[in-house]
């Protein structure tokens, strides 16, 4: 069941043209180099041939009736959508009932708002002394009361409706200055006190600090890479400008309502909005966010088709014909993926052109597209049936959409938003500049994760896995076990899994961003520890369970040490976290371990070395614990994993309590 290593994929990590004897026999001369070039050319031509075949088959088998139905639905949706765009889809229409007589001035409020349905007062029934009735809000003369469970909410909604009604009333007035007696002009200024990366703007802005909470927020912002010196000088100018036009605060002649330009349009350091108080909108990149979401929508449809085509090969052993062709499994997969990737890139470019994004939008969306395709490929390789595939793709859609979308909401709020490449799109659409560091932090984990997922899926692109019915977890273990041969591969895999750990932990931070701190800490401490422990031990377990290693204690200790040490080294690479100032966030420290702030708390070199070495020992010890558990089968592996996670989490908590 586990399957012997297949010759074509077992060398997959090392060679680019696997399983070809000629390549191994060749000696290191010029002729082999030339033959390598020729091989590469052959390989490319095979990939292109598979891609061409995929395109022709996809377009060739589309039924005319399907196209007709799709077109008909598209036209219907277009017409109805266009017609309904004006007044919304009416989800909130008439959900509350107001008891009011027609001569009452508030009657017009209820009829002007969609949310309310009116009944005359004589039809109002109220039971149980106001606990229930056939209305939510009752209005007698000028008194307004509410009834029943949802009465409060209805009353609150009615209050908003009155405000909206007043606004509409005023908009119809002839005397504009009487109707809009208050004019507001809001100017956003960059206050850069307490920033480490930036030199202080003015002497008075130097070492003063505000109230406690405000301080941490703002300094975190000040260190974000996107705020460079260029903007700094801009803010300096603002201040000068502001003090210059003292005598004439606003242009009073201007009709107030005509100048309600969007706050998010410019995205400059200095945005000025003028209008009546009702026009004030918080500086939230709502429009950019919606536009950025447009990039993600088509991916969810494309992966449906992509998953189908991969799964199709696995039904009735159709893919066997391709497998026996001279093309290697990696060439087949590359060829089958290429059209879909190209299609997605085409869509992304089209959207970018349509909404006026820049090159950055494309550059940031391509890794997202790759991740969608990679996850779908692995899902289609692991799924047992179309039904399962549907759920796997929906899961992928939902999880990945969340991963890219939620952090992007916080684009202007915290640097944590950078974990999602979509944040770069939002920034691009707002006209903000993005540093190379920010781009790399956002996209590298995504690129790496996509690559690893593709590799894992490729491991099962072989006869015994493609055409067999095995549960998904078994296939995952299979896919990992394919990559395990010899002790040397264990540390390699530990390193390969680091991007996963990174992405999972970042997602946890982003999801729990708004939760209460204590709860967040506890969850993140244990979740982060669990993710790291799984990453260090799952391939060791795969190796033991697929008989790649002798299940002895000595082997477990050696493998655990290798895995833990390699993971430690790779994790040091994630110190780029500091690049974006993530260590300002307590939850980031909880996830990435206390070493994140080692540089700040260490008094001398000895303490610093201790802080760096202690995690090495920790990683090795916990990896050995789970490796020993893995020698004895599934149950003991799970138990050992739990133990290792507990040790890891308690260590992290302990260190943080010690140093803070």
């Amino acid at each position, binding site marked *: 069941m586990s399957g012997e290593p297949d010759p074509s994929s077992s060398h997959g990590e090392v060679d680019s043209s696997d399983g070809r004897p000629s390549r191994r026999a060749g000696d290191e001369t010029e002729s082999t180099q030339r033959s390598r070039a020729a091989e590469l050319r052959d390989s490319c031509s095979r990939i292109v041939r598979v891609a061409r075949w995929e395109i022709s088959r996809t377009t060739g088998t589309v039924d005319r009736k399907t196209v007709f139905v799709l077109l008909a639905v598209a036209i219907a949706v277009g017409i109805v959508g266009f017609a309904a765009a004006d007044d919304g889809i009416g989800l909130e229409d008439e959900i509350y009932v107001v008891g009011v007589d027609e001569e009452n001035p508030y009657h017009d409020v209820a009829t002007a708002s969609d949310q309310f349905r009116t009944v005359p007062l004589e039809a109002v029934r109220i039971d149980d002394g106001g606990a229930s009735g056939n209305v939510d809000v009752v209005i007698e003369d000028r008194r307004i009361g509410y009834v029943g469970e949802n009465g409060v909410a209805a009353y609150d909604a009615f209050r908003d409706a009155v405000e909206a009604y007043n606004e509409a009333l005023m908009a119809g007035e002839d005397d504009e200055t009487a109707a809009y007696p208050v004019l507001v002009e809001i100017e956003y200024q960059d206050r850069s006190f307490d920033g480490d990366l930036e030199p202080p703007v003015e002497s008075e802005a130097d070492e003063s600090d505000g109230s406690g909470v405000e301080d941490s927020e703002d300094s975190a912002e000040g260190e974000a890479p996107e705020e460079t010196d260029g903007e700094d000088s801009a803010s300096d100018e603002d201040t000068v400008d502001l003090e210059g036009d003292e005598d004439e605060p606003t242009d009073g002649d201007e009709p107030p309502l005509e100048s309600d330009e969007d706050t998010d349009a410019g995205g400059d350091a200095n945005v000025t909005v003028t209008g009546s108080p009702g026009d004030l909108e918080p*500086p939230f990149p709502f429009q950019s966010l919606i536009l950025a979401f447009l990039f993600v929508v088509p991916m969810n449809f494309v992966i449906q088709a992509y998953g189908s085509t991969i799964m199709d090969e696995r039904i009735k052993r159709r893919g066997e014909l391709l497998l026996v062709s001279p093309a290697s499994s990696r060439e087949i997969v590359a060829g089958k993926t290429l059209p879909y990737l190209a299609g997605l890139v085409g869509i992304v470019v089209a959207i970018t052109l349509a909404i006026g994004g820049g090159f950055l939008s494309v550059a940031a969306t391509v890794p997202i597209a790759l991740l969608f395709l990679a996850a779908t490929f692995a899902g289609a390789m692991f799924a047992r049936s179309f039904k399962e595939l549907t759920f796997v793709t929906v899961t992928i859609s939902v999880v990945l959409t969340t991963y890219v979308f939620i952090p992007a909401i916080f684009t202007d709020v915290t640097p944590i938003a950078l974990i999602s490449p979509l944040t770069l799109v939002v920034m691009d659409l707002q006209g903000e500049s993005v540093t190379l560091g920010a781009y790399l932090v956002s996209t590298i984990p995504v690129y790496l994760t996509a690559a690893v997922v593709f590799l894992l899926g490729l491991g099962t692109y072989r006869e015994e896995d493609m055409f067999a019915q095995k549960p998904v977890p078994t296939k995952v273990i299979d896919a990992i076990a394919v990559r395990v041969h010899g002790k040397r591969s264990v540390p390699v895999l530990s390193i390969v899994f680091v991007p996963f750990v990174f992405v999972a932990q970042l997602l946890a931070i982003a999801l729990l961003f708004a939760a209460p701190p204590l709860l967040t800490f506890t969850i993140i401490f244990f979740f982060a520890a669990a993710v790291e422990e799984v990453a260090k031990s799952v391939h060791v377990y795969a190796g033991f369970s697929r008989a790649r290693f002798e299940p002895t204690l000595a082997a477990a200790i050696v493998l655990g040490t290798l895995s833990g040490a390699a993971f430690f080294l790779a994790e040091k690479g994630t110190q780029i976290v500091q690049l974006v100032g993530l260590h300002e966030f307590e939850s980031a420290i909880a996830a990435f371990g206390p070493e994140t702030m080692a540089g700040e708390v260490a008094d001398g070199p000895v303490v610093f070395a201790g802080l760096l070495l202690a995690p090495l020992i920790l990683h090795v010890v916990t990896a050995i614990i789970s490796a020993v558990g893995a020698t004895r089968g599934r149950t003991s592996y799970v138990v050992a994993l739990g133990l290792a996670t507990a040790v890891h989490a308690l260590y992290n908590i302990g260190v943080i309590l010690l140093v803070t």
Partner: protein
Amino acid sequence: MSRDEPTRERRIDGGSDEQTQESVQRGPNPPAPAGASANGDGDARESRFGPRWAVACRELRSLRSEKTIILAIAIQLFIAAFSSFLVVGFVSMYDPDGLGGQDIDVAIVGEDPATLEAAADDQAGLNTVRYDDRAAAYGTFENGQVAAVLETSRNEHDQLVVDVTAPEEGIETTLLVVQLRETLEAVEHDERLANADRLASTPLTIPDEVEASPYVGFTYTILVPLLLFLPAFISGSIVVDSLIEERERGTLELLRVTPLSLADVVDAKLAATAVLAPMQAAAWLALLAVNGTTVARPGVLILVVAALSLLVVGLGTVVALVAPDRRQAQLLYSVAIVGALVVSTLLPEHPANTVAKVSLGSATATTWLLVALYCLLGAGAFLAARATVERIDPAEL
């Protein structure tokens, strides 16, 4: 990761009849009726209901063994959590009281600050500090002692001009702007009343503020409809996959060798998947009730879900029988669902609005008519699926 392995091992060790029932080994030959008789359902075989029951059971068992149903529920939970997260995030961003945040200090400078101060005093969470000196006011802003500076003046039209200087970004600014808007709107309202002689109409008095949950609207108009409709859409997707899979793997052929007619098989699959949605809907409503969100007429809601589920599953069945392959079937199905959701805005009430009204207890005659219409449509879809089965030639599938 590998939780399922030993279970699977055990299944294989078990009886071979049992094994063929499980989709784990569902290879080329799953003779469902044979399995049913081996399972002791022999007496049920005498009626026509029996074999269908066996097919339906097999359908549900395969969902269970693939853990798809668990995944489906997890997805729904995730979507619900995701949308709630978004709403809670947005609402707390616009409603500082919801965050329980501390007061925001703003500096006021310039002429006629009294009206503004009075309004700010009424506004919870906003404190004002008056400065006579502009430089001093902006100095406190620069060093972070106050969150914003408001500079007031009167222009030639006797309008109150408020110049706000706020920090550029961050969640603090969002809260500040929301607070300021409410305060300034209160000022505006007072000033308008003072201008009443120049206005053709007098603004209505705004009712007093109350402590209301800002989530009620979202819960009833989005979350409840979402949780009720998702199971139906998922059921439709399951039936498409299930039928297409039988076709493509050639197992439908084998089923036809049994005494079952194609109509029996389709009926059974349709029933098995259609019944899942109202069950899940009932579970969601119970869960919501535990969380303190009660709906007015749960029975009616479950009826609506059952009708919609029948409608969607019937549609899925037709698509699966007519479409040439899985890719096109799924595409047609999802496009049809999206299309139906958009086109249903033409109805006097959107289905989501109907659900919201029923659950809030403000249903009208139109609402009841639409509920009846959905029931009719559900029955119609079932008949359409029936007609499609009779029209197509099983040998061509």
